[in-house]
């Protein structure tokens, strides 16, 4: 009796599924507990993908229910028990074979048609007037260049709400993948090639993402953020990013000290920040992110740490510990040097 019940409840996956759906449903109604979810898109492309996915999902659920039910009913009904009929020595049935070949094929056609439609819809060229952005993956941070607007920044991508965006994606080293789930599916970033993503974000907000192609020790740490601003806020941001660097006030000793440290941290010279980073008016290094307006970002180290004194200090103290394999070396900075650098970097708005 217990065994028959157990078998009847070949529902373990079903039960688990229901149990797990509950928090999802509850959570969906309260704040954003799933900031990287693929299920709540906020762009035209994202919505097209989601709509297609939901269609396929429900077909899959239907097939799942039919097949698992058939399986369960069969094993219960034809289980061996006293008085059970002898097994019928059937070898096959052509009509049945045809039926259950055509039925799945028909379902697949029903999935294929919207699939191909969506493929072409999502793959279209960027409409004129789209914001052109080059996304370049590095081990382990994201570089963004807005060629028409003259902006170069890192890790936090700003986009205007309601305007199409055309991303031209590539890599400076190994294969990465740009993925901001709430805005679009992912697109690989490859050296020597340019891939493209086109979408129009429709909601203001901050959306999380991260690299989705294994790219070495700190693949897990290669995060990104996309800030969708109102058109006015976006224009303001662009103006800000292209503005001249904030002059260092000679009265602010800390920031001055920080600037000096930025330019030269003891010997050997290759440990100076200027070797790897671009700081408008100061240096033109390209191995690391452009820091000209780093103070205006909300996070640093590709989204790993908050961009506040504590976060920046932690990063400067030991980048390799925060990001295994980091190309930014650990330099034995004194606490004073760190404080000065923090002040300087935070001032670079």
């Amino acid at each position: 009796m217990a065994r028959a019940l157990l078998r009847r409840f070949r529902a373990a996956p079903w039960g688990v599924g229901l149990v797990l759906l509950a928090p999802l449903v509850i959570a969906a109604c309260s704040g954003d507990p799933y900031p990287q979810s693929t299920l709540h898109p906020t762009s035209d492309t994202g919505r097209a993908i989601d709509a297609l996915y939901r269609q396929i999902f429900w077909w899959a659920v239907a097939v799942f229910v039919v097949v698992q039910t058939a399986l369960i009913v069969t094993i219960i009904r034809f289980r061996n028990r006293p008085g059970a009929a002898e097994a019928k020595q059937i070898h096959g049935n052509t009509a049945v074979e045809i039926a259950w070949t055509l039925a799945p094929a028909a379902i697949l056609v029903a999935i294929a048609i919207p699939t191909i439609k969506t493929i072409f819809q999502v793959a279209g060229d960027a409409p004129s007037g789209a914001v052109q952005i080059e996304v370049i993956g590095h081990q382990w941070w994201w570089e963004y260049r807005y060629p028409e607007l003259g902006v170069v920044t890192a890790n936090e991508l700003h986009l205007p709400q309601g305007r199409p965006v055309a991303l031209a994606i590539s890599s400076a080293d190994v294969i990465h993948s740009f993925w901001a789930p709430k805005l679009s599916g992912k697109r690989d970033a490859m050296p020597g090639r340019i891939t493209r993503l086109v979408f129009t974000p429709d909601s203001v907000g901050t959306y999380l993402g991260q690299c989705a192609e294994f790219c070495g020790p700190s693949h897990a740490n290669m995060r990104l953020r996309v800030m969708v601003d109102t058109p006015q806020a976006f224009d303001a941001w662009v103006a800000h990013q292209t503005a001249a660097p904030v002059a260092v006030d000679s009265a602010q000793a800390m920031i001055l000290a920080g600037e000096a440290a930025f330019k030269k941290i003891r010997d050997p010279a290759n440990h100076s920040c200027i070797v790897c980073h671009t700081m408008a008016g100061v240096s033109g290094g390209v191995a690391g992110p452009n820091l000209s307006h780093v103070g205006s970002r909300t996070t640093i180290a590709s989204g790993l740490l908050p961009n506040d004194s504590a976060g920046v200090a932690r990063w400067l103290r030991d980048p390799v510990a925060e990001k295994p394999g980091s190309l930014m070396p650990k330099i034995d900075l004194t606490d004073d040097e760190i404080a000065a650098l923090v002040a300087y970097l935070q001032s670079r708005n």
Partner: protein
Amino acid sequence: MATTAMPHSETAVPTAPAGLWSWVTTTDHKRIGILYGVTAFFFFLVGGLEALVIRLQLGAPGNTLVSAEFYNQLFTMHGTTMVFLAIMPLSAAFFNFIIPLQIGARDVAFPRLNAFSYWVFLLGGLFMNASFFVGPLLGSDALSVAPNGGWFGYANLTSTQYSPGPNIDFWVLGLQILGIASLAAGFNFITTIINLRAPGMKLMRMPVFTWMSFVTQFLIVTAFPVITIGLVFLMFDRVFGTNFYRVSAGGDVLLWQHLFWLFGHPEVYILILPAMGIVSEVLPTFSRKPLFGYAVVVYSGVLIGVVGWGVWAHHMFSTGLGPIADSVFSASTMLIAVPTGVKIFNWIATMWGGRITFAAPMLFAIGFISLFVIGGLSGVMHSSPPADLQQTDTYFVVAHFHYVLFGGAIFGLFAGMYYWWPKIFGHTLREGLGKLHFWLMFIGMNLTFFPMHFSGLLGMPRRIYTYGPELGVDTFNLISTVGALLTGVALLVFLANVIASRRGAAPGANPWNAPTLEWATDSPPPVYNFSVIPTVHAANPLWGKDRMDPAVLPATPPAPIHVPGGSIWPLCTALGIIIMAIGAVMHHHVALSLGTALFGAAVTVVGIYKWAFEPFEV
């Protein structure tokens, strides 16, 4: 000369030789099958241990159980081990033991080549896993220089520029060695199945396990050469500085992906078809009726093998192939779901109208159907490129392939273990422990992998050593970790069963009253398999009115049977190959490397010549 080979017997009733040396030199497919099974199961446990550590690391966000570098080695070796050192050789264990018996042959076509495949597999697996311990010998600060580029080793992360240590070298060389083993076995089994069938054993009377294995061998001999070349290119880039994947020279990183997946997709059918064959044997036996739609199931298997060559780029939907390529591969991928679904319906129809007993093999076979359907459905979701752009490279696809490979292949292989254990070892595994093993594994497997559908769709990418709490996937990961531990317990139950059942009662030739030829022999079979080669008149030669004749095999052979002796030369040749690989992995010490490689080549050549010219009769 004649003394180098083991003396062969032409007495009236040959018996299997005893002693360690007889195992080292064995050319008997049954012994080679056992060797494959034991070795593969050991590697399965190694891969499982790697999985457990992975799950423990991911059980909580921001965990620091293992370093990022070691984690990357763990998931690389977990995938590589499970695919090449566990599932494939576990299937090979059954190819070896069961196929000759099912077709009514005394052995495979090339017994020494068979032994060679096993030794190359064993030594190749040991070579690759040695990388965990030999770091200092190769100039590394770390103990472990295990492969760390993922089981798929994408260029150009695997170049010397971005992977400077010997880790990737171990991976490339290890896979090449394992490829040799698989190819040799492929030639052997194709020839065996084509050429050594008993009288009346037409192709369309062969058991489905033999048929699916037959298709698998064709996939092996056509797919492995492609990855061989891809790996050769990678090795040449790393050792000599060629330009195959060098972007600055105009090389294309996508070349690697195409070559890898042209192999990689047929490879997943190599992994699943034998298990599907096993299920196709177990279901009829325990339903007491023949397989529904035998011909359709066979043709579906062939179709899956053939169409499986046309879907490879569905692993590359995020690389921007373009809408036309995306559409073509989407269509071919959906197409392949049809024969797969047809098989599932035929399996259910086999049970329909039957009289089902739920012995352990049957539980695993039914579990296979249930779990494989889930994996197949998530696979259909992946077949749609736009949807796949949100699913690929996330835990959603990790869920998909674990459902088909664990819920599918592994459950199918366990069904085979419980089914054929009495035939192979002369005693049955205990039924109670078997059921416990099944339920723990079924629940554990679902607990581990079902939540991954959610964590994937909620934005958790794969191949990450840690994740932040802000994603909201902590609970799903914790449940997966608990499930993994439960699965580990299930495996311990299996091991306990193996030990506890050793003194079980002799089961007789056909304890399950099954219909195929292997059940006509004793359990375990005598060294010569069949006292007389029976003549077959229909599929299921032990059932129904068209039985084989003689209907019962004589207890002792009426005529002298020649049983070939053993040979040491397959092992010798295999050793030579491994020595060459050891030389190659030391390529930074040019003189030592060259010397070792040349020595290995000499050992290989000597092995081949001795093998070719020793007196050996099948």
